[in-house]
C-alpha cells in the first residue's frame, strides 16, 4: 500500500498492521540510537561541542547573506561554476541544462536529500535523462520506485529479504538470497559499471566553507568520490544553510555528524572538494526553495541549523513506530515535521501533530534545534491559519467553554463519571479510539473536590 498519499495517522495505522515488522523497525533504529549514545559518551566535551556547533550555526543564520557572497566569490576563484536557484524548478532546470550541454543522457548521483526535496529524478527522467543513485540504500529504494524513508539510512524500512527480492528482480541475483555479502557484491558490480560509464556525476554537500570556497561531502561508501572523480562534470547541489564560516569549524561538525548519525567516530569518507581537476568542470548550485522564508520566521528559523544527521529520527518513538513514509515528505521524522510546513502548510498540516512532544529530539540534536518547541509552535500557526478541520475547531471551542468555567467543569465531570459508571457502553465502543486497545479508567463516585469539601473544609 502506498503510504505517501495518506496523512500521518492513517499511514501509521497501516504500518502498524504488521506488529512484528514495527518491532523490528523500532529495534533496528533504537540500536542506532544506542550506538550514538555510546559514541557520544566517549567524548568528555560532548555537550560543549553541541553548544559550539549551535553557536556557529546561529552565527551563520545571522550572517547568511555575507557568508554566501564570500563563498561564491571564493568558489569562483577556485574555478567552480556557481549557480543560484530560487526554487526546486530552477534547480532542476539548471541541472538539466548542465547535462544537456555535455550531450550526456545519463548521470550518476550520490545521496542528496535536496534533490529528493526538488523531485529531481522524476524531472530528469521525464526529459530523457537516466539517473542512477549510487548510495546503496538509495539505489535499493530507487529500484523499488520508492522514496527514501530515512535521510541517512534510506532503505531502513526494508528487511534483507525485501532487498534480496528487489535485487533478484532488477540485478538477476538468485531468488530467495538474503546474504548481505552476496547482495552487496551484486550491487557493487552493478554500480562499478555505472561509475565507469557516466560522464556527469551529482553529489550533495554537507558543508560549504565560506573562507575557502570549497565544500565537504560525507559518505560511508565512497560513492560520491567514485562518481565525482570519474566524471567529466561534477555537479554539487546544496541548500544555502549548508554554509559554515571557516574550515576550522569542520573540526566541530565532523565530530558531531557521524557520532550523532550512526555512532561512528567519523564518516568513512569526508571528501574535501576545492576546485575541478584539470579538464573537469565543477558546478555548484545553491538552492533557496523556501529557506529564505523559513529564515524570516522568527520562531522557526533555527530549523535551518540542521546538519541532517537523523539523530532525531532514530530517537523519536513515533518515527520508529510509524516508518519514514508515513511523513509523506522528503525529510521525515521530527526535523521533517518542522521543515515541511514551511514548504506547504496545507499538505503538511498533520506532521507537527505526529508527536507526543516528548522532547527527546531537541536533546539528541547535535546543533541544539528546539524541535519539540517548534512542533508546538507550528501547531498554533497551522490552526490559526485554518488548516485544522471544522470539527476539530468546534470540539476545541466546546472543550474550552467547559474547562474555563468552574461550574460547567464540575457539572460535566459529574455527569461524565455518572454515565461511565452506569452506561459504560457509551465510551466502550469501537467509535472511541482510546478503547480500541485500552480500557477506560474506572470512574469514581466522587471527585477530589467533593471529597475535599466533605472532609477538609470546615
Amino acid at each position, binding site marked *: 500500500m502506498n503510504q505517501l498519499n495518506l496523512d*500521518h*495517522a492513517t499511514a*501509521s*495505522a497501516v*504500518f*502498524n498492521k504488521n*506488529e512484528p515488522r514495527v518491532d523490528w523497525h*523500532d529495534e533496528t533504529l*533504537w540500536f542506532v540510537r544506542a550506538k550514538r*549514545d555510546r559514541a557520544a*559518551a566517549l*567524548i568528555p566535551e560532548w*555537550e560543549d561541542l553541541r553548544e559550539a556547533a549551535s553557536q556557529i550555526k546561529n552565527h551563520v543564520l545571522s550572517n547568511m547573506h555575507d557568508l554566501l557572497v564570500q563563498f561564491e566569490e571564493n568558489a569562483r576563484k577556485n574555478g567552480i561554476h556557481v549557480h543560484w536557484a530560487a526554487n526546486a524548478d530552477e534547480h532542476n532546470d539548471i541541472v538539466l541544462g548542465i547535462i544537456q550541454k555535455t550531450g550526456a543522457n545519463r548521470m550518476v548521483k550520490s545521496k542528496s536529500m535536496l534533490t529528493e526535496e526538488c523531485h529531481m529524478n522524476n524531472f530528469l527522467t521525464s526529459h530523457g535523462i537516466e539517473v542512477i543513485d549510487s548510495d546503496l540504500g538509495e539505489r535499493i529504494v530507487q529500484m523499488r520506485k520508492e522514496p527514501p524513508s530515512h535521510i541517512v539510512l534510506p532503505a531502513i524500512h526494508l528487511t534483507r529479504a525485501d532487498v534480496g527480492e528487489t535485487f533478484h528482480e532488477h540485478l538477476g541475483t538468485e531468488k530467495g538470497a538474503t546474504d548481505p555479502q552476496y547482495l552487496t557484491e551484486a550491487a557493487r558490480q552493478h554500480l562499478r559499471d555505472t561509475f565507469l560509464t557516466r560522464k556527469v556525476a551529482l553529489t550533495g554537500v554537507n558543508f560549504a566553507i565560506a573562507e575557502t570556497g570549497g565544500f565537504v561531502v560525507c559518505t560511508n561508501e565512497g560513492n560520491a568520490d567514485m562518481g565525482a572523480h570519474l566524471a567529466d562534470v561534477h555537479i554539487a547541489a546544496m541548500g544555502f544553510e549548508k554554509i559554515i564560516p571557516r574550515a576550522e569549524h569542520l573540526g566541530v561538525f565532523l565530530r558531531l555528524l557521524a557520532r550523532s548519525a550512526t555512532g561512528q567516530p567519523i564518516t568513512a569518507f569526508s571528501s574535501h572538494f576545492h576546485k575541478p581537476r584539470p579538464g573537469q568542470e565543477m558546478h555548484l548550485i545553491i538552492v533557496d526553495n523556501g529557506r529564505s522564508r523559513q529564515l524570516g520566521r522568527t520562531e522557526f528559523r533555527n530549523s535551518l541549523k540542521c546538519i541532517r544527521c537523523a539523530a532525531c529520527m532514530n530517537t523519536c*518513538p*513515533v518515527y520508529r*513506530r*510509524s516508518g519514514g513514509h508515513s511523513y509523506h515528505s522528503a525529510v521525515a521524522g521530527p526535523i521533517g515535521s518542522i521543515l515541511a510546513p514551511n514548504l506547504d502548510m496545507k499538505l503538511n498540516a498533520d506532521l507537527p*501533530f505526529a*508527536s*507526543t*512532544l*516528548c522532547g*527527546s529530539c531537541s*536533546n*539528541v540534536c547535535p546543533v541544539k534545534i528546539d524541535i519539540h518547541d517548534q512542533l*508546538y509552535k507550528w*501547531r*498554533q500557526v497551522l490552526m*490559526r491559519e485554518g488548516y*485544522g478541520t471544522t470539527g*476539530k*475547531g468546534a470540539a*476545541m*471551542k466546546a*472543550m*474550552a467553554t467547559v*474547562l*474555563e*468555567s*468552574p461550574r460547567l*467543569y464540575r457539572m460535566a*465531570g459529574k455527569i*461524565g463519571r455518572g454515565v461511565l459508571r452506569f452506561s459504560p457502553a457509551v465510551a466502550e465502543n469501537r467509535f*472511541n*479510539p*482510546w478503547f480500541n*486497545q*485500552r*480500557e477506560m*479508567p*474506572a*470512574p*469514581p463516585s*466522587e*471527585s*477530589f*473536590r467533593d*471529597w*475535599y469539601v466533605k472532609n477538609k*473544609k470546615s
Partner: protein
Amino acid sequence: MKVGLFIPCYIDQFYPHVAIATLKLLESVGCEVDYPLQQTCCGQPMANSGFENLAGGCNENFVRNFSGYDYIVSPSGSCTLHIKDHLHATNESEATTIRSRMYELTEFLTDVVNVSSLNATFPYRVGLHQSCHGQRGLGLAQMTERMLPPFSKPVQLLNLVDGLELVQLDRRDECCGFGGTFCVTEEAVSAKMGKDRVADHLRHGVNYITGVDVSCLMHMEGILKRSNSNVQIKHIAEILTATV
C-alpha cells in the same frame, strides 16, 4: 509556607485518591496546604492541539485561583510544565509570579522542602516511568540523550521508602505514547508505544509501575487492564505515603 494545591482536571475527576495522597504527603512534611475550590484545568488540552488562543479562559481562572500563594504544587509534571511555559493573563505580572512559584510535587519535596526521610513502606518491585514533560521539560531527572552526570528527583524520594525495590528498565526514559489528544488522533502509534513501554516493565518483573504523571500512568493502566495483567499503577504520591 502557604502552598496552593493544583489538582489537574483528570486527576480530580478520575484519580481523586492520587490527589488525597498528594495532600497528605504535603501536610506530613509540614506544609500548610490550601485547595482553591474554583480551579479547573491548566489549558494544555487546547494548547497542545494548536488552540492556545482558546486557553485564555483557563489561564484567567488559574490566575484567579492561585494568586497569593508562596508555592503552587501539583502532582503532574506535564500540567506543571504547561503552566510554567505558557501561563499568560490580563494580569501578566501576576501570571509571571505564578509561573515562577509553580512546582511539580517531587521537585518541591527535594528542592524546597529538602525532604531527607519519609515514613513510608512499600515492599514491592517497582518500575519508574520517567514522564517526558517532567523529566526533559522540568529537569526532574537526567535524560539519556544528554552526556551529563545522572540524577533523579523521583528516585531520590523512592529511595527513602522502606522495602521498595526499584527495577532497571531496558529503555530508561522512552515516552509511553500518551501525548494528550495524540492518544486518540494517532491511536495506532500511541497504543503501540504504550504496549512497548508496559512490556519493558513486565520483562523486569515489576509489581507496580509508578511515575509523576497520572496521564502516562492512566495510559499504561488502560493497556495493562486490557491484557488482564495484575500489575498495577501507582502515582508516586501514593507510594511515598504508603504504610503496611
